[in-house]
Protein backbone atom coordinates (compact mmCIF):
# COMPACT_ATOMS: atom_id res chain seq x y z
CA UNK A 1 0.00 0.00 0.00
CA UNK A 2 1.26 3.43 -0.99
CA UNK A 3 0.71 6.03 1.72
CA UNK A 4 1.44 9.70 1.91
CA UNK A 5 2.99 10.88 5.19
CA UNK A 6 3.02 14.50 6.35
CA UNK A 7 5.35 15.92 9.00
CA UNK A 8 4.73 19.11 10.96
CA UNK A 9 6.62 21.48 13.25
CA UNK A 10 9.32 19.84 15.30
CA UNK A 11 8.71 16.51 13.54
CA UNK A 12 9.51 18.05 10.15
CA UNK A 13 12.77 19.29 11.67
CA UNK A 14 13.68 15.71 12.57
CA UNK A 15 12.69 14.20 9.22
CA UNK A 16 14.04 17.21 7.29
CA UNK A 17 11.03 17.05 5.00
CA UNK A 18 7.38 18.02 5.15
CA UNK A 19 5.99 14.99 3.38
CA UNK A 20 6.89 11.82 1.57
CA UNK A 21 5.22 8.90 -0.15
CA UNK A 22 6.06 5.43 1.19
CA UNK A 23 5.32 1.83 0.25
CA UNK A 24 3.92 0.19 3.42
CA UNK A 25 3.42 -3.52 3.90
CA UNK A 26 2.37 -3.67 7.59
CA UNK A 27 -1.06 -3.53 9.20
CA UNK A 28 -1.11 -1.26 12.25
CA UNK A 29 0.03 2.26 13.02
CA UNK A 30 2.66 0.72 15.30
CA UNK A 31 4.14 -1.13 12.29
CA UNK A 32 4.36 2.11 10.37
CA UNK A 33 5.99 3.88 13.29
CA UNK A 34 8.60 1.13 13.68
CA UNK A 35 9.48 1.54 10.06
CA UNK A 36 9.77 5.33 10.49
CA UNK A 37 11.85 4.93 13.67
CA UNK A 38 14.39 2.89 11.74
CA UNK A 39 14.71 5.68 9.17
CA UNK A 40 14.54 8.63 11.62
CA UNK A 41 15.91 7.35 14.93
CA UNK A 42 15.44 10.72 16.67
CA UNK A 43 11.66 10.39 16.24
CA UNK A 44 11.68 7.91 19.14
CA UNK A 45 12.54 10.75 21.52
CA UNK A 46 10.01 13.19 20.10
CA UNK A 47 6.44 13.57 21.27
CA UNK A 48 3.74 13.35 18.59
CA UNK A 49 0.24 12.12 17.73
CA UNK A 50 -0.79 10.35 14.55
CA UNK A 51 -3.70 11.38 12.34
CA UNK A 52 -5.18 9.26 9.54
CA UNK A 53 -7.31 11.09 7.01
CA UNK A 54 -7.39 14.04 9.44
CA UNK A 55 -8.57 12.14 12.51
CA UNK A 56 -6.36 11.25 15.46
CA UNK A 57 -5.76 7.52 15.81
CA UNK A 58 -3.91 5.19 18.21
CA UNK A 59 -0.99 2.80 17.65
CA UNK A 60 -3.36 -0.16 17.44
CA UNK A 61 -5.45 1.36 14.65
CA UNK A 62 -5.18 -0.26 11.23
CA UNK A 63 -3.52 1.82 8.56
CA UNK A 64 -6.12 2.19 5.82
CA UNK A 65 -5.83 5.73 4.68
CA UNK A 66 -4.07 7.53 1.93
CA UNK A 67 -2.91 10.30 4.27
CA UNK A 68 -1.05 9.89 7.54
CA UNK A 69 0.25 12.88 9.53
CA UNK A 70 2.71 13.04 12.44
CA UNK A 71 1.68 15.93 14.68
CA UNK A 72 3.82 17.37 17.48
CA UNK A 73 2.08 18.96 20.52
CA UNK A 74 -0.50 21.55 19.41
CA UNK A 75 0.38 25.11 20.27
CA UNK A 76 -2.11 27.33 18.50
CA UNK A 77 -3.50 30.57 19.88
Amino acid at each position, binding site marked *: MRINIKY*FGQIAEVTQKEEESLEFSGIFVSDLLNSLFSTYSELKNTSFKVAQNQELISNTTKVTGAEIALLPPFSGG
Partner: protein
Amino acid sequence: MQSKKPKNVFQQGAISSDFIGNSIFKHQTKTSIGAHNIFLGQVRADVIDGKTVSAIEYTAYEDMANKKFHEIRESAFEKFDLTCMHIYHSLGTVKAGEICLFVFVSSPRRKVVFEALEFIVEAIKAETPVFGKEIFEDESHQWKINS
Protein backbone atom coordinates in the same frame (compact mmCIF):
# COMPACT_ATOMS: atom_id res chain seq x y z
CA MET B 1 -24.29 32.85 10.56
CA GLN B 2 -24.10 29.04 11.01
CA SER B 3 -22.73 27.23 7.98
CA LYS B 4 -22.30 23.57 7.23
CA LYS B 5 -19.08 23.77 5.24
CA PRO B 6 -15.64 24.32 6.86
CA LYS B 7 -14.41 27.85 6.25
CA ASN B 8 -10.78 28.88 6.16
CA VAL B 9 -9.95 30.20 9.61
CA PHE B 10 -6.36 31.11 8.77
CA GLN B 11 -4.99 34.40 7.65
CA GLN B 12 -1.42 35.22 6.72
CA GLY B 13 0.45 37.20 9.40
CA ALA B 14 -0.90 39.13 12.38
CA ILE B 15 -4.57 40.02 12.89
CA SER B 16 -4.83 43.83 12.92
CA SER B 17 -6.80 45.93 15.41
CA ASP B 18 -8.54 47.52 12.39
CA PHE B 19 -9.77 44.13 11.27
CA ILE B 20 -11.15 43.50 14.77
CA GLY B 21 -12.77 46.94 15.00
CA ASN B 22 -14.36 46.43 11.60
CA SER B 23 -15.66 43.02 12.60
CA ILE B 24 -17.32 44.60 15.66
CA PHE B 25 -18.80 47.33 13.45
CA LYS B 26 -20.42 44.77 11.15
CA HIS B 27 -22.42 43.38 14.08
CA GLN B 28 -24.21 46.65 14.77
CA THR B 29 -26.95 45.76 12.28
CA LYS B 30 -27.76 42.62 14.29
CA THR B 31 -30.10 44.13 16.84
CA SER B 32 -31.02 40.88 18.56
CA ILE B 33 -27.51 40.79 20.04
CA GLY B 34 -27.13 42.06 23.61
CA ALA B 35 -23.63 40.82 24.46
CA HIS B 36 -20.38 40.20 22.62
CA ASN B 37 -17.34 38.48 24.06
CA ILE B 38 -13.98 38.60 22.30
CA PHE B 39 -10.80 36.66 23.03
CA LEU B 40 -7.50 37.83 21.58
CA GLY B 41 -4.28 35.85 21.78
CA GLN B 42 -1.22 38.13 21.67
CA VAL B 43 2.40 37.00 21.20
CA ARG B 44 4.37 37.49 24.42
CA ALA B 45 8.02 38.58 24.44
CA ASP B 46 8.85 35.83 26.95
CA VAL B 47 12.41 35.65 28.23
CA ILE B 48 13.69 32.07 28.23
CA ASP B 49 17.25 31.35 29.41
CA GLY B 50 18.13 35.01 28.92
CA LYS B 51 16.81 35.17 25.35
CA THR B 52 13.72 37.17 24.38
CA VAL B 53 11.02 35.85 22.02
CA SER B 54 10.69 38.31 19.13
CA ALA B 55 8.02 36.47 17.11
CA ILE B 56 6.12 33.22 16.70
CA GLU B 57 6.04 31.49 13.34
CA TYR B 58 2.82 29.50 12.93
CA THR B 59 2.31 26.49 10.72
CA ALA B 60 -0.69 24.16 10.67
CA TYR B 61 -2.05 20.98 9.19
CA GLU B 62 -4.49 23.31 7.48
CA ASP B 63 -7.15 20.93 6.18
CA MET B 64 -7.41 19.05 9.47
CA ALA B 65 -7.32 22.29 11.47
CA ASN B 66 -10.12 23.87 9.43
CA LYS B 67 -12.14 20.70 9.92
CA LYS B 68 -11.55 20.83 13.69
CA PHE B 69 -12.38 24.55 13.83
CA HIS B 70 -15.60 23.68 12.02
CA GLU B 71 -16.44 20.90 14.49
CA ILE B 72 -15.78 23.26 17.42
CA ARG B 73 -18.04 25.82 15.77
CA GLU B 74 -20.85 23.34 15.21
CA SER B 75 -20.72 22.03 18.77
CA ALA B 76 -20.65 25.56 20.21
CA PHE B 77 -23.80 26.45 18.26
CA GLU B 78 -25.41 23.26 19.54
CA LYS B 79 -24.47 23.85 23.20
CA PHE B 80 -25.03 27.61 23.43
CA ASP B 81 -27.66 30.07 22.21
CA LEU B 82 -25.28 32.04 19.98
CA THR B 83 -26.25 34.54 17.31
CA CYS B 84 -22.78 34.75 15.74
CA MET B 85 -19.37 33.21 16.06
CA HIS B 86 -16.12 33.99 14.26
CA ILE B 87 -12.63 32.50 14.58
CA TYR B 88 -9.43 33.75 12.92
CA HIS B 89 -5.94 32.33 13.44
CA SER B 90 -2.65 33.55 12.02
CA LEU B 91 -0.22 31.57 9.90
CA GLY B 92 3.38 32.65 9.29
CA THR B 93 5.21 35.23 11.37
CA VAL B 94 3.48 37.17 14.16
CA LYS B 95 5.71 39.56 16.10
CA ALA B 96 5.66 40.03 19.88
CA GLY B 97 2.75 42.34 20.76
CA GLU B 98 0.77 41.34 17.67
CA ILE B 99 -2.44 39.31 17.68
CA CYS B 100 -2.49 35.69 16.45
CA LEU B 101 -5.96 34.49 17.53
CA PHE B 102 -9.31 36.29 17.40
CA VAL B 103 -12.44 34.55 18.67
CA PHE B 104 -15.71 36.50 18.66
CA VAL B 105 -19.07 35.26 20.01
CA SER B 106 -22.37 37.11 20.25
CA SER B 107 -25.69 36.29 21.89
CA PRO B 108 -28.84 37.98 23.11
CA ARG B 109 -27.68 37.36 26.72
CA ARG B 110 -24.38 37.78 28.53
CA LYS B 111 -24.18 34.54 30.57
CA VAL B 112 -24.07 32.58 27.34
CA VAL B 113 -21.13 34.44 25.79
CA PHE B 114 -18.86 33.89 28.80
CA GLU B 115 -19.43 30.14 28.81
CA ALA B 116 -19.26 29.80 25.05
CA LEU B 117 -16.05 31.80 24.58
CA GLU B 118 -14.10 29.84 27.16
CA PHE B 119 -15.37 26.55 25.75
CA ILE B 120 -14.29 27.54 22.24
CA VAL B 121 -10.84 28.88 23.17
CA GLU B 122 -10.00 25.82 25.26
CA ALA B 123 -11.13 23.53 22.43
CA ILE B 124 -8.99 25.44 19.92
CA LYS B 125 -5.92 25.11 22.15
CA ALA B 126 -6.50 21.38 22.71
CA GLU B 127 -7.80 20.12 19.39
CA THR B 128 -6.49 22.09 16.43
CA PRO B 129 -3.19 21.04 14.83
CA VAL B 130 -1.45 24.41 14.84
CA PHE B 131 2.24 24.70 15.69
CA GLY B 132 4.07 27.73 17.03
CA LYS B 133 7.82 28.18 16.66
CA GLU B 134 9.13 30.80 19.09
CA ILE B 135 11.83 32.83 17.37
CA PHE B 136 14.37 34.54 19.63
CA GLU B 137 16.11 37.82 18.91
CA ASP B 138 19.31 35.93 17.99
CA GLU B 139 17.28 33.89 15.43
CA SER B 140 17.53 30.66 17.38
CA HIS B 141 14.16 29.05 18.13
CA GLN B 142 12.18 26.65 20.29
CA TRP B 143 8.82 24.96 19.78
CA LYS B 144 6.01 26.43 21.81
CA ILE B 145 3.96 24.17 24.05
CA ASN B 146 0.49 25.24 25.27
CA SER B 147 -0.01 25.18 29.02
